[in-house]
């Protein structure tokens, strides 16, 4: 009941926001493409191109159904599109079906404003991921155990209020640039990424993190972030419900104008895939937010009890 009321109210807000954005859209949309290359961002006191601000992210869903259909074919279940897939974690009867399909599955790339940019899987062009055959078989088997979840490991990390998968979440994100670092704060899941620019090495290989260990450097107006030391306990997206601890990501954040950061991430996960693949998206600066709010999740969640029942002894 409350949820329904909330959704109505938020929809009204979304409509208002959309109208406001639409009023601004022409100026943004009609800018000649060539101007992007000429954009010169301000500099921070330590000389970094200034990318500070609050952004929303789109396109990084791992899946873009619109683009697939535009190509006139549907690959042979490359990443389990949700709408027609009985294995999808979104179609489960255990309460999680109310999850808004804004993440990944519904292709958040479909909701970009401004000029259309590449989104979702951009390499390989046919969007079919280069799974190792045996790993693809394991993945399909894994998905068979997610509805209902056969055990804790089959529950998505974000449903557990744990640190989220790589392609989950759309923002807002706040970028801050203290001397020698880029700090990305996420409202969703209230996590922080500190990307040191001081040339330090990665952490020792036995120290593993949900978000991995990131180091970065600037190449012109592009922040390049190299991340290793993943613990392998999160996921890519709902359709690719895990990743391996061999993962290495290289992200490129390119400032293209005052409001836009083009994003591209190269996935190198040799335990699961035969070669690397790439996902692209865009961070769009939002000026109607001045601050991130608190995203409390575990503090009220009964998700696991709903799925599995109350643990004994509690």
């Amino acid at each position: 009941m409350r949820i329904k009321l909330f959704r109505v109210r938020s929809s009204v807000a979304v409509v208002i926001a959309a109208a406001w954005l639409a009023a601004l859209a022409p100026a943004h949309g009609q800018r000649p493409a060539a101007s992007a290359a000429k954009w010169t961002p301000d500099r921070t006191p330590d000389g970094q191109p200034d990318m500070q601000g609050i952004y929303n992210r789109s396109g990084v869903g791992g899946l873009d159904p619109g683009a697939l259909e535009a190509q006139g074919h549907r690959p042979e279940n490359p990443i389990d599109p949700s709408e027609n897939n009985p294995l999808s974690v979104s179609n489960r009867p255990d309460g999680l079906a109310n999850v808004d399909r804004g993440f990944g599955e519904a292709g958040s790339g479909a909701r970009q404003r401004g000029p259309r940019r590449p989104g979702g899987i951009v390499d390989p062009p046919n969007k079919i991921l280069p799974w190792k055959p045996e790993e693809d078989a394991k993945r399909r088997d894994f998905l068979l155990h997610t509805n209902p979840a056969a055990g804790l490991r089959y529950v998505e990390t974000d449903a557990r209020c744990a640190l989220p998968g790589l392609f989950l979440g759309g923002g807002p994100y706040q970028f801050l640039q203290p001397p020698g670092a880029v700090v990305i704060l996420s409202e969703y899941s209230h996590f922080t990424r500190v990307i040191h620019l001081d040339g330090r090495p990665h952490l020792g290989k036995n120290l593993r993190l949900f978000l991995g260990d990131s180091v970065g450097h600037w190449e012109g107006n592009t922040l390049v972030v190299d991340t290793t030391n993943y613990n392998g306990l999160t996921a890519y997206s709902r359709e690719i419900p895990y990743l391996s601890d061999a993962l290495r990501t290289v992200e490129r954040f390119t400032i293209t104008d005052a409001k836009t950061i083009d994003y591209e991430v190269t996935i190198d996960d040799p335990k699961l895939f035969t070669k690397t693949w790439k996902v692209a998206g865009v961070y769009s600066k939002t000026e109607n937010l001045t601050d991130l709010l608190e995203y409390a999740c575990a503090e009220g969640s009964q998700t696991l009890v709903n799925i599995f029942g109350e643990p004994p002894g509690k």
Partner: protein
Amino acid sequence: MRRSVCGLTAAASVGSINHPFGSNRRQMKRLTKFVPGAVSVLFILWFAETPAAPQTPGARPAASTPRRTVAGKPDLNGIWQVLNTAAWDIQDHSGQLGVPPGQGVVEGNEIPYQPWALAKKAENFAKRITADPTEANCFLPGIPRATYLPFPFQITHTPDNVAISYEFAHALRTIPLEGGKHIEGLPSWMGESRGRWEGNTLVVDVGNFNDETWFDRAGNFHSDQLHVVERYTLTDPEHILYEATIEDPKVFTRPWKMSMPLYRLVDNHPKLLEYECVYYLQEERFKDAPFKK
């Protein structure tokens, strides 16, 4: 624009109607209020800071002069941690099994509880092993407790913003500087922070708390009327004097204060790591799931 956040909040609250804390109801309330409000806030105010004039050669800074940012403010950037036992008990306490002894951090060592609240504190203490929201349940620790948990935290400091990221449960606070007044009626676990500089001291006004967090594992507590004013004073490049004034007319008879030094991590390439309390707790509680309903 905020659909994704709203959607997941809705998901997290599915089935939480019976949760004793009822926190999701509050989340919903604050988000429903915020979303239309946010749309009406159209501008980010940028307060450009004038870089400090270069120091005159020969005018060697006194030992107490803090390291400064380009914008001329004391540089709080870095990873910090306390060296005390306030996480167990903010007042003087002797050692017990698993509890290191410590001198308290409360000025005068007395917390001015109203009589009913003193009884409630004793009740909290008795059931602390299961009832402590932070240690037993891994919930967000609130302010000031996040500061003196035995985990480091990172301060990110730019001319317009301060953010504090805590290793415990990846708790996060953003602190806009000169960022205006508190939003009405948005109670939260970590409170809502507004910062300003008073000379060399960063003063953070924190309001909009819920009544769910404790000050320590000894059951010291507050209500949703809690108001905290924190003061961060860089006393030398490696130390911050941290002071917090606590005000809560529902629970205390007068405001009271705690203070302690914060120590900069000076290790080679210190880095904030992860203590994913919720995840670890779930691994323990649900390792044999599914259970019979």
